């Protein structure tokens, strides 16, 4: 199994930390992982993206240009990465702020209204975990128990009290994701 993922959105949406929690969960499950961010000026208020690879084998390049899954959180990222999804791959997007929908016909497309839901529930801080939950519903590449360990390793100990809230958000996401186009 090798899963090559791009997560992309605005800086501040928790893109990098979502990737880190997913990657750390993979480490805990004894997978090979890599987490490769965009960095520099892009990080400072503009768009942010991170490639995460989780695999049973030694990972060759952490830098990749096609993806099994694209998790898209804004329009710019949709424009940039829709065409990088491998044929037959998966695109997940949050419809918040999306003005033109994805157009590919050869990929599976799901949407998750995580921004709206998180606002409604007053859990905007764990918005990214709602999105992660949606992804894990479709591709359960890491087990629940390892997600817990991944959260423990990703968050500083003083924030461990927030782990249950993060886990709840993941569960909410699993229920929230809905198909747009399934091959």
């Amino acid at each position, binding site marked *: 199994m090798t899963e090559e993922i791009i997560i992309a959105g605005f800086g501040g949406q928790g893109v990098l930390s979502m990737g880190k929690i997913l990657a750390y969960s993979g*480490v805990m499950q004894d997978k090979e*992982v*890599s*987490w490769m961010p965009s*960095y*520099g000026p892009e990080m400072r208020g503009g768009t942010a993206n991170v490639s995460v690879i989780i695999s049973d084998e030694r990972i060759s*390049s952490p830098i990749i240009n096609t993806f099994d899954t694209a998790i898209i959180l804004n329009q710019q990222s949709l424009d940039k990465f829709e065409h990088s999804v491998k044929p037959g791959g998966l695109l997940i997007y949050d419809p918040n702020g999306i003005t033109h929908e994805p157009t590919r016909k050869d990929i599976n497309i799901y949407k998750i209204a995580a921004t709206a839901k998180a606002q409604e529930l007053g859990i905007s801080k764990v918005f990214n975990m709602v999105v992660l939950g949606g992804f894990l519903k479709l591709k359960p590449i890491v087990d629940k128990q390892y997600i817990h360990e991944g959260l423990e390793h990703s968050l500083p100990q003083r924030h461990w009290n927030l782990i249950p809230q993060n886990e709840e958000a993941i569960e909410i996401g699993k229920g929230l994701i809905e198909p747009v186009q399934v091959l």
Partner: protein
Amino acid sequence: MAKELKLMKGNEAIARAMIASGTDGYFGYPITPQSEVMETLMAEKPWEDTGMVVLQAESEMASINMVYGGAATGKKVATSSSSPGISLMQEGLTYLAGAEIPCLVVNVMRGGPGLGTIQPSQSDYFQSVKGGGHGDYQLYTLAPASVQEMYDFVFDAWDIAFKYRNPVLILSDGAIGQCMEKLYTRDYVPRWTEEERRKNAPWGTWGKPANRPHNIITSLELDSARQEVFNHKLQAKYAEMKEKEVRYEMLNCEDAEYIIVAYGSSSRIAMKAMQMAREKGIKVGLFRLITLFPFPSKQLAEVAKHVKGILCVEMSAGQMIEDVKLATNCGVKTEHFGRFGGIIPTPTEVLEALENKIIK
């Protein structure tokens, strides 16, 4: 601290390896994309634990000269920077090499020339292995291709640096520095005791006991005849490194009709391209350089005898390729493929280059 499994950035791995390998001091100056090295050290406060000294200097020139001062007392002292900062350190590096001071310098490369970009690049190859500073000198140069190697090579660097009384350069780039991967940490190596320091660095300047002559650390010799003798001594040392300390990795080279030569993050991209080629039935191997100086010339020449072509992949306009051609005596078709200025080539591009420049 015991062995642990972690997910970590390459830059953080460098910092943690410095602490864990018994490093006595770190002096640095912030520059993207390597600032996490000093940030991690400052957050970890090793001075409270191992006694390691960490100081933010006023410039890279000051950092490298602090390395000189500290390391010349026979202690394990390191710095890190990225390309423009490493350029500022070249004066210090030639002095360190000329005074035969063991130390560790890490370059997390970014695109140039000039201020350039902050994205990954590998265009400091010439600077690293062909001098950089003035005079005939070499830095033992290690090129990590993973976060684990970023960590492990710090430990290796200290062994080489003190064995040969020579500066060691870890030549990485923004991709490996910023990338997070799985990492097995090691048990702490304690910092040297006073007795160990005196035993391992009898040449050090820590205050002259009554029973030994004063130790002098200098790269100055006004007598040209003596300076030539000293240069011969340096060259003999470098020759010994070439003989004994070459490191490389070969993947799928046994049956390869074509090989890709690369180091650092380019070798990871090349590995993916190699896998893609093999899926298409093209017999491609990867020759990954681990030491850039000493260059694995003999080993590469041996492999090159049996292949139809070599593609050199480097995030530069073509620097490493010169050493590849020298190693193989231009005996086989050799081409360069690279992106530069902070652009990372994709595995698909590498495969296309292989097909278009070498196989066609």
